[in-house]
């Protein structure tokens, strides 16, 4: 292993091979800013990564009250010392010159600096006016997957019991809502069944719409190290792009967009037809097998091959590998969650694991993933369209339990209808019944679909918007009040990754100017609103991160996500701990469902379920009849064609997605020199055949147009499937002259083109099923597209394209064995 590597050119660093069932070797990655040596570091402050969901444990190096670098923590269960490129370099965005340092208030059409008192009084006054005039339904909160657990929980109590509104959701609706919903539909309750350690034991890993190499690069290093070792696992990859995962797969299926259910139904058909089911497991732990078997009786590989445009032979090959696996691990991400029939498809992956009896044992399980660092916490805390602690809003006992913890009357917690999902909150704002929207740590003016519409909604004079962020984002530019927030390393709190591992992120340095931790801002608001409980005491009885965490522990007690055995001190000592962690399981819980299904009984479940096609609620009575003993539910689903079809005007299927080097709307990664240089500008991907058909070449400036809008970028020719065009969704306008919208050079944000359509079950918007056309704007000058060459956007013909590299500025340390 080399001591130093350019981690832009080699994002996954060097290999530390290991065999099946062995421990993953340690490799400690580190980066200090140029001119700083380890001797100059005054202290190392423990934390975990914020720019993806993997939860890599790391330490922040501080010198002269300034962050000067990071290193991985070798003893942590998640990463064994490794860091991804965004972990290594992304902290530099904290130092950006354009951080917000003072609250801003709109005055005469302009945002002008004001003090905290003025800003917070304005928000509290407007809240009270609206409560008097229109009631709590006029007020909504749209949060993120990037705050800390303590902040979401505080926000949830404010919204649900303080204001009494149903309108609280996160941008996690765009990334993890389907993961949560699929787990709820199958297992009755949210909670990640598997663990990252299952990669150490699996002999087959199936990745469904999950470009793990770019979304969770450290987890992918674990897979790469297994692939380099003895007895490597075989990979099955479903992805229309030639991702690094696809390149290493034993079978790569690249289906037409929007056809995941057809493909999965065919895989289930084959596995059942060939008798590769675990009948004892199915009988003991599931209901619904007969209906599933009937549903997939006719969904043959031939049938699916026609719908998905994938060779029949490849479907049977994939089924053969999945059916023959001894230890099967499946993972799922946005290629399923943001595509047509999202929840239905994600549930079929659960079904695959269940009919094969692959659950709750080392190497056997499903990872319904998420994308953001604390997406999991929004789900637990009830900031993602659920009640805190995975409580069921339709179960009066659950609501009473929550009301007891908060010491309020149950009627103060709205539970007459499901919590409102984000896209419906924006619809209420559009339609005029929602008058105040408080946006924390997210940038809907780049990340939501159909941006023309979102700009109109947020631009309405009748909508009072508060934006709490680090920078003057596209969204903040349209706000009525802007609140400067502290970020990671400037505040303390916990976050929980995609395999239930909780980490403590400690404050290392002070925030700039008057910026404040999000928790402090929310507590300030609660004080000004003077929310009270039944005994006239303050509704929110905590005052800092640790006391907020302790309040959350009580709320989680006895629930699936039980945190009562986790303390700040333990997290400091032990590093990451997986919930549930209780007196009975003091070291946390590696896998759920090791001894049957635990939270699906009618009195315990988080939901009674929904119809996978319509989203219609299953009633409590029906659920009791269907699943009296609380087993896993094998929910079958019929394939339905996508809503927006290609035609002569819009002949291409349009999908959007991400790149390794950026996170979300680039607010931090574009302010990180190494990351921004690796992917500086939006690009457009098509296959060589499609380029020929359109008479365009690598590097040409092209326009992608859908019925809603268009985007311009330089063309990259890759091995993506024919008939498809891909746009990265990260790019917006804050670093263009126009600031928050397209200028004369056309659109740059992929979401100018995407459709307003969401999965009726999980309510997750669909970014991977639209129709578009591609036209030439001007031929290039022979230089290639600015897309990275190291990832799924790698050029089909690399001969004339300079490889992506970071040079001396991106050289990071890596050392084996010793910290």
């Amino acid at each position, binding site marked *: 292993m080399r001591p130093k590597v350019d981690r832009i050119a080699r994002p996954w660093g060097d290999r530390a091979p290991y065999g099946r069932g062995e421990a993953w070797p340690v490799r400690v990655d580190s980066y200090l800013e140029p001119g700083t040596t380890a001797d100059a570091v005054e202290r190392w402050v423990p934390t975990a990564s914020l720019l993806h969901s993997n939860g890599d444990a790391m330490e922040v190096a501080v010198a002269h009250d300034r962050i000067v670098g990071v290193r991985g923590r070798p003893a942590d269960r998640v990463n064994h010392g490794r860091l991804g490129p965004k972990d290594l370099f992304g902290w530099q965005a904290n130092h950006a010159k354009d951080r917000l340092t003072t609250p801003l208030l709109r005055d005469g059409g302009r945002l002008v600096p004001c003090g905290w008192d003025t800003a917070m009084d304005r928000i509290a006054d407007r809240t009270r006016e609206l409560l008097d005039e229109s009631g709590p339904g006029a007020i909504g909160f749209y949060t993120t997957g990037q705050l800390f657990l303590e902040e979401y929980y505080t926000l949830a109590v404010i919204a649900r019991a303080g204001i009494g509104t149903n309108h609280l959701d996160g941008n996690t609706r765009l990334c993890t809502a389907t993961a949560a919903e699929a787990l709820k539909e199958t297992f009755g309750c949210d909670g990640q069944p598997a663990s990252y350690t299952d990669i150490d034991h699996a002999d087959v890993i199936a990745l469904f719409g999950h470009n793990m190499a770019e979304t969770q690069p450290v987890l992918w290093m674990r897979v790469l190290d297994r692939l380099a070792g003895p007895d490597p696992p075989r990979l099955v990859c479903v992805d229309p792009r030639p991702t690094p995962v696809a390149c290493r797969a034993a079978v790569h299926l690249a289906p037409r967009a929007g056809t995941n259910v057809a493909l999965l139904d065919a895989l289930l058909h084959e596995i059942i037809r060939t008798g590769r089911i675990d009948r004892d497991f199915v009988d003991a732990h599931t209901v619904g097998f007969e209906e599933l078997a009937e549903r997939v009786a006719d969904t043959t590989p031939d049938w699916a091959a026609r719908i998905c445009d994938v060779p029949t032979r490849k479907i049977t090959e994939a089924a053969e590998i999945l059916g023959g696996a001894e230890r099967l691990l499946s993972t799922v991400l946005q290629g399923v969650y943001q595509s047509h029939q999202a929840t239905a498809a994600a549930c079929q992956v659960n079904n695959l694991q269940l009919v094969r009896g692959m659950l709750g044992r080392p190497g056997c399980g499903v990872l319904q993933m998420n994308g953001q660092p604390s997406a999991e916490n929004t789900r637990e805390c009830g900031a993602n369209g659920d009640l805190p602690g995975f409580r069921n809003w339709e179960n009066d006992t659950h609501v009473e339990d929550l009301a007891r913890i908060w010491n309020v009357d149950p009627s103060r917690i709205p539970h007459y209808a499901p919590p409102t999902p984000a896209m419906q909150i924006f619809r209420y704002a559009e339609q005029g019944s929602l008058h105040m929207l408080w946006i924390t740590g997210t940038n809907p003016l780049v990340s939501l679909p159909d941006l023309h519409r979102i700009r109109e909604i947020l631009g309405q004079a009748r909508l009072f918007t508060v934006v709490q962020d680090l920078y003057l984002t596209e969204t903040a530019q349209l706000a009525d009040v802007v609140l400067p927030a502290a970020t990671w390393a400037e505040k303390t709190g916990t976050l929980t990754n995609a395999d239930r591992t909780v980490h403590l992120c400690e404050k290392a340095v002070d925030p700039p100017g008057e910026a404040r931790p999000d928790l402090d801002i929310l507590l300030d608001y609660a004080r000004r609103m003077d929310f009270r409980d039944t005994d006239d005491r303050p509704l929110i009885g905590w005052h800092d991160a640790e006391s907020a965490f302790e309040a959350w522990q009580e709320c989680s007690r006895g629930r699936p996500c039980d945190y009562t055995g986790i303390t700040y001190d333990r997290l400091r000592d032990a590093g990451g701990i997986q919930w549930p962690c209780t007196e009975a399981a003091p070291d946390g819980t590696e896998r759920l469902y090791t001894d049957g299904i635990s939270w699906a009984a009618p009195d315990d479940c988080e939901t009674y379920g929904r119809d996978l096609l319509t989203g219609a609620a299953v009633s409590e009575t029906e659920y009791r009849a269907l699943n009296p003993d609380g087993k896993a539910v094998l929910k079958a689903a019929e394939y339905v064609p996508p*809503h927006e079809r290609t035609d002569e005007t819009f002949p291409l299927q349009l999908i959007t997605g991400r790149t390794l080097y950026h996170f979300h709307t680039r607010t931090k990664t574009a302010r990180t020199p190494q990351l921004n240089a690796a992917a500086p500008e939006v690009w457009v991907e098509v296959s060589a055949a499609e380029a020929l058909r359109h008479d365009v070449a690598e590097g040409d400036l092209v326009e992608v147009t859908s019925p809603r809008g268009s985007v311009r970028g330089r063309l990259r020719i890759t091995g993506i499937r024919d008939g498809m065009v891909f746009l990265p969704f990260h790019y917006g306008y804050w670093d263009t002259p126009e600031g928050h919208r397209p200028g004369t050079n056309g659109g740059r944000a992929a979401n100018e083109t995407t459709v307003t359509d969401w999965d009726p079950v999980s309510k997750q918007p669909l970014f991977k099923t639209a129709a578009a056309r591609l036209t030439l704007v001007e031929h290039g000058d022979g230089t290639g597209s600015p897309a990275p060459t190291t990832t799924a956007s790698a050029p089909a013909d690399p001969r004339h394209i300079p490889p992506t590299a970071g040079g001396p500025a991106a050289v990071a340390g890596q050392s084996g064995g010793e910290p």
Partner: protein
Amino acid sequence: MTGIQIVLRTLHDGERALERELLAAADRHRVEHEFHHVARDIARWSHEHAERIAHAAEPHDLHLPGPTDQPEAAPPMATVREPLGRTLGRQPNPGLLLLRDLRDLHLAATENSLSWEMLAQVAQAAGDAELLDLAAACHPRTLRQLRWTNTMIKTLSPQLLASL
């Protein structure tokens, strides 16, 4: 006309009408995105049902019209019901129009559900296995249409009505 013929004709009319109403309502509420898309998805079920009913009716000497490729849009709320319909109908508010459409769709699906029930019953009485299979195959989807409209009303009405 025999009892079976009467039920088949009623059901055929009902499924064709529901398809038309679903498509028309989807058209009226294009900006209610979830409603719009799901209404179109489940209109397909009614279309299939009407086809299967017409096919099953042939041996019973009942010649029902085949499906139209492009069902005509229903006239604006052909089936407005009293008295809530009239009260709501005077309001220009699109939220109220949506609730009214959902309610009408729910009632239309309920009529179909009752017809499927009658068909299953008469099929058993007459020992007609084919008609019994037809009802068993189609009735569950009608019930799903019913549950959907009910869920949408439960979800949307607090906000749409409390904000008036």
